[in-house]
């Protein structure tokens, strides 16, 4: 492996990070607000589908209503609130309560924390120098390596 490959890879990955960041900010064709809203609202007469995905009468009506309200100059939040007032918070597929978002993230953060503490509490495994190895041991090691590998 040539010495320049490593730094080049680092530079390339950094460059890619830049590209991805630009891609993330500019977005592809940023989805229209109506589409995003429809994907966040639950279809009242289906099971576990959003209004965007469903073609039932109720879903069609809600999509039409979203477009009409946006055309009338309402903001996305106002439209969302309109449907919450009408159907209750049940209509939101993305639950509004911050607890719904915080609890699982806290659980993951806590488990990473516990793991970190557990690892730091331990001393690193002692490093043993390779000893002189006779043929018998070599064969045994080869055997064990074979059975361990995979």
């Amino acid at each position, binding site marked *: 492996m040539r010495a320049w490959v490593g730094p080049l890879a680092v530079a390339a990955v950094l460059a890619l990070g830049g*590209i991805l960041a630009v891609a993330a900010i500019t977005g592809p064709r940023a989805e229209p607000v109506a589409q995003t809203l429809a994907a966040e609202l639950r279809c009242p007469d289906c099971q*576990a*589908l959003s209004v965007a995905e469903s073609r039932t009468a109720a879903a069609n009506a809600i999509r039409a209503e979203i477009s009409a309200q946006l055309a009338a100059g309402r903001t996305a939040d106002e439209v969302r609130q309109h449907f919450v007032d009408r159907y209750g918070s*049940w209509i939101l*597929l993305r*639950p509004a309560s911050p607890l719904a978002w915080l609890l699982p993230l806290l659980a993951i953060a806590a488990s990473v924390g516990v*793991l970190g503490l557990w*690892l730091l509490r331990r001393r690193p495994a002692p490093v043993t120098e390779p000893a002189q190895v006779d043929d018998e041991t070599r064969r045994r*090691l080869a*055997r064990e390596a074979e059975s361990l590998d995979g």
Partner: protein
Amino acid sequence: MLPTIGHAAIVVALALSLYATLAFGLGARRRDRSAVASGRHAMLAAFALAAAASVAMMASLLGHDFSIAYVARNNATTTPPFYSVISLWAALEGSILFWALLLTGWSGLVLHRYRNRHAELMPWVGVTLALVSAFFFAVMAWPGNPFERLTPVPAEGNGPNALLQNHPFMGLHPPLLYLGYTGLAVPFAFGVAALVTGRTQAEWLAIVRRWTVIPWIFLTAGIVAGAWWSYEVLGWGGYWAWDPVENAALMPWLAATAFIHSSMVAERRGGLRVFTMALVVFTFVLTLVGTFLTRSGVVASVHAFTASSIGPWFAVAILLALGGGLGLLLWRLPALADRRPPPLAVSRESAFLLNNVLFLGLTVVVLFGTMLPMVVEAATGERISVGAPYFNAINAPLFAALIFLMAIGPALPWGGTSWSTIRERFAGPALLAVALTLAGVLLGMRGIAQLGTLFLAVFVVGVLGDEVVRGARSRARTRGEPPPVAAWRLATRNRRRYGGYLVHAGICLMAISVAVSATGARQAAATLDVGESMTIGGYTLTLREVVVEPLPDDARVIETRAVVDYGGAQSGSLATAQRDYPSSTTPIATPGVRTFATEDLYVTLLQADANGGAASLQVFLNPLVAWIWVGGFVVVAGAVFAAWPERRRLAMAEVAAAGRRDAPASVPAEGASP
């Protein structure tokens, strides 16, 4: 006659399972081999009786015997034979019978296979499996009797759930899933046996991993087949909705996958043993939770069966399994404590640790999100929803991190690593990934989801491919074999490792396809008169005709079908339909799907006017969806390759032969880098 036989078979099977529990327990305490053998025979007989009951049910369904309530609810005289037979698993009671059949099948297989080995463990494995089987037979003997009679006998039944008789995949998806679910009782039984006997060394790990991978293969295939079924049948253009019951299948899969990974650390390095054992317990408990969610009517879903009284039974079983398993684990905690703690370093152990945290995190998020609406409603009375936007937002980064770990984990050495190793193993693949991501931009891929996934997936495949090439080259050099032969021999002598690589490659293929299809789909809707056209992407769709007629194999079902000609990059015609079933108030969509290499043309009929010859069509152009299923096949193939037997015998024979010639040369790939 048949229902009497079926019910009697279930009652006797319950008695036999309870007897087997006692016999195994006695055999374990008194070290009495004949008692253990008697328990084993009782379990084999219970399997035979479960099979008899299942056959009785299938025959009753085929014969439309509406004196059985289950048949009257789920069958009609016009139901085609194929859908009659598979109605065994189409609703609550029948699916529990099917479950018991598969569970006793796995139990019999395992007890028979290991009858002369693991003399300490097997009685307790038997106790656990017999007790779990007894639970399912008891459910059928009391709250969920599949052979319950109906008087007066109706002349005609309701027919199966319309959604479930619409596609032959109904014959494939549930059995695969149930084989996975029920098979996961086996590792749980070995876990319990290891904890009870205190034999928590490497012995149980090897068996348990094998017996987790086998159900895992079925579970994976079942989940992919379910997604495929949903895509082909439901007509909304997608394949995964984070529906509670999809989540119920995903949770044990996530926990089992975590186990498969942590067990490697436990086996190779003696670490993570408590965690590994806990995962065995969690995986099994999550299969029960899945059953509870599907069968008890606590969640509303495509899959949820009618509300029933079996909920409390499953709730108790879940608590017993969880409490019993974790109780045993706590009791054995001192013996399980890690002998060699993993060092804090950039090493394969660390990658595995992080992998486990992520898989468990995913499981927790899915469980939390699935249960939250129930918990909130029970606590406050308020009804809330947790759906796809929530799960996607939280889980997508976790999955991305897992894919990254898939690249670096297998390529990092155990114990620790140096900068030069990192550079040597990852620089090339990283460059390749950057290059292909740029190519992706040029090909029109956009957005962080598509490009980020592409980058990660190429990185993974690059690293794994490099590992394989380096291993094969090294083997070719030391053995003088042609490189392809060396690669094949290397792979077949290290099945777990290279099968695992194939699984990872399949997951990467699925990840790219999911990312692109989820963010790159296009859709259009139009109402067309006969002869009118619409366009989407490069395709022009023209409505040729609208036909209304009864189905040839079931005249009670009226199909409204629109025939559409399409032209563009590909041309041809397809039919998309709505079917009116007598058992369903809303028509069931039968989308027309044409699969091409890079995209699917997916047409759903929204509404049709047969007289005027007009149809409302919803058309999706879904990129790369077919590659999700291909990726699923690759994953399953990789896992089958990894679990294929014989490896050890061959490998040992070869090492023995090589040892006679020249021992060091037989050290394979892992240590073979220059």
